[in-house]
């Protein structure tokens, strides 16, 4: 159902991090932007549909002369109706760039506060909601930045507490005019999920308990929370009530990335077991219950996957990255 397309070569191999691939789909142009973390640097590049890289850029966090740059934890494009920003998280700073990575518009230094030296400080988990960018941290707090329509006047507007362990991932969904609807979900290292309603102040709606296994990746679609866990499970919860509806023994190793194709409700799961699976989600119109079916499976031999994303909103193409692999592998439906 999906066929392997030409790979996009990278300058450096992908680091062993969860969610280590970001894809920016620009609807007006037939161009894709990809972002991959190598280690102390991240590479962003744009590519035509046939996989030919057009422009590329290396990003680093420069903290001082003679000091080696800190490791980057994630790069992610935050898409607003009015603006697109590229956000980079690392072990020292959060940096925000114009969408092509050419200009850094804002940075925020992480503050170790009173935490002990036994814990490394870092930011991880990035998502856009309304006019906010939310970024997770090692302490479990979520930083909310207020993003103006243009310019560098970005302000840290709120800090959300709800997690006790490092944040792993954040997912958001644009609420369709409904008030009080859950539009953000955050996940952490202990597998706890928090469901939020964004706004001038963010409200914690539900807290879904963990079970001692990290939740490296999370997605939100039509009030369904999809969570991928360290034991290879994918779980689907009702975002409003936090009720578990579906549990899939999906992979034999930790899941590294989930993604959703919002137009069709396809869920992509990628894991360190070298497999990628695509699931079709559905909400039964009569009972309201959540249903799922296995749609496609793919083995990427000898590749410990670290990132996976759909490349279009209908889920007809996707791309994956693997640890130690200096290319982005692409697949599209036939």
């Amino acid at each position, binding site marked *: 159902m999906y066929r392997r397309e030409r790979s996009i070569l990278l300058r450096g191999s992908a680091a062993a991090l969860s969610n280590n691939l970001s894809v920016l789909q620009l609807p007006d142009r037939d161009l894709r932007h990809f972002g991959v973390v190598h280690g102390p640097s991240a590479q962003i590049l744009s590519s035509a549909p046939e996989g030919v890289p057009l422009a590329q850029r290396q990003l680093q966090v420069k903290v001082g002369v003679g000091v080696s740059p800190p490791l980057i934890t994630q790069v992610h494009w935050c898409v607003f109706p009015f603006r697109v920003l590229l956000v980079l998280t690392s072990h020292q700073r959060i940096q925000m760039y114009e969408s092509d990575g050419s200009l850094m518009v804002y940075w925020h230094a992480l503050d170790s506060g009173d935490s002990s030296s036994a814990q490394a400080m870092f930011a991880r988990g990035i998502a856009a909601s309304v006019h906010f960018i939310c970024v997770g941290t090692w302490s479990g707090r979520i930083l909310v930045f207020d993003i103006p329509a243009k310019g560098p006047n970005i302000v840290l507007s709120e800090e959300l507490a709800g997690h006790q362990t490092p944040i792993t991932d954040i997912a958001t969904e644009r609420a369709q005019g409904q008030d009080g609807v859950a539009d953000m979900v955050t996940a*952490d290292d202990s597998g706890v999920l928090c469901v939020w309603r964004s706004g001038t102040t963010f409200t914690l709606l539900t807290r879904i308990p963990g079970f001692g296994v990290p939740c490296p990746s999370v997605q939100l679609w039509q009030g369904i929370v999809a969570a991928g866990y360290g034991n*290879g499970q994918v779980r689907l919860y009702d975002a409003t009530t936090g009720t578990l509806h579906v549990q*899939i023994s999906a992979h034999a190793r930790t899941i590294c990335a989930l993604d959703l194709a919002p137009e069709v409700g396809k869920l992509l799961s990628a894991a360190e077991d070298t497999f990628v699976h695509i699931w079709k989600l559905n909400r039964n119109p009569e009972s309201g219950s959540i249903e799922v079916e296995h749609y496609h499976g793919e083995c990427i031999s000898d590749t410990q996957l670290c990132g996976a994303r759909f490349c279009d909103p209908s889920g007809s193409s996707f791309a994956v990255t693997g640890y130690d692999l200096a290319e982005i592998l692409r697949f599209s439906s036939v």
Partner: protein
Amino acid sequence: MSVRTLPLLFLNLGGEMLYVLDQRLRAQNIPGDKARKDEWTEVDRKRVLNDIISTMFNRKFMEELFKPQDLYSKKALRTVYDRLAHASIMRLNQASMDKLYDLMTMAFKYQVLLCPRPKDVLLVTFNHLDSIKGFIQDSPTILHQVDETSRQLTEIYGNLSAGEFQMIRQTLLTFFQDLHIRVSTFLKDKVQNSNGRFVLPVSGPVPWGTEVPGVIRLFNDKGEEVKKTEFKHGGNYVAAQKEGSFELYGDRVLKLGTNMYSVNRPVETHMSTTSKNLASRTQENIAPNPLAKEELNFLARLMGGMEIKKMSGPEPGFRLNLFTTDEEEEHAALSRPEELSYEVINIQATQDQQRNEELARIMGEFEITEQPEITEQSTSKGDDLLAMMDRL
């Protein structure tokens, strides 16, 4: 980047180093009564292992190692092992040491990559420590040192969460990223591909706590399972039988980190046809790695190039060549690519105030009386450890 990574990295690489040295020393063993003065005997082998292990597990050194800290640079860590390998009467030159370090790093990279759960890297470490205890079972003092380290590991790592272990594993994998040296043992076992990447199996037991993939369960609002369907995952997994023991002594279940060079794996001394083919294939690679051309086993006949080397000290040092002949060793040294060069850090006198304080502190811990005007340089983070090892 986890600040809890260094002890695991150091102990596992050290364990791999001891495996290689032990096997090469055994292979070259001459019965004590027949050996000339310049030949290795069983007594010498034990002495080398004893000396290295007691250096490695020195209490103060371990204390320093277990403090939360970033990873040392590759170069610094390489230097640590250089020092460690020379803690006894054995001498390795640069090319043989490089070869040894390549073997150690690729072996541990393989183990980290294949670890079923991130937490299992601790079982890999226990496997190494268990074997090390076997090497020194006749020396109760050293055995006690190693047991002490096992206890420390349990104390510090026993309660870490799965998330923290995941970060430790990611830090280790970052350390080993882009390292694709081909090892003949791995190539022969078909666990490494000719491009230097490891084979990731899609069969066998799933990690402890993971279900065999292939099942979808649906629940109603009351949390009751209402439907169970199956899908084809594509792998061929079976359930895990039991969890390995994280106790001081116990069945680790996991085999990663045990001695892969043991009895039933004889030392290879001849270059096989396959290895020739592999060598020629390497040259076709886009980024050739000249070192990979030298097949591990035919190059690494530990005792092959042994010769007496008069040391300046009161005792002669035994030179150990990891290559078949001196010529090969020399060639390897010359043909090693720049990017793989470790260039051992030299520790010399310097006047770095900040570092002096730090070193003075560490030296104090070692309770070594030092002439006050002699100080040591720290060109990078690793030197603190190196300085200590100098004094062991």
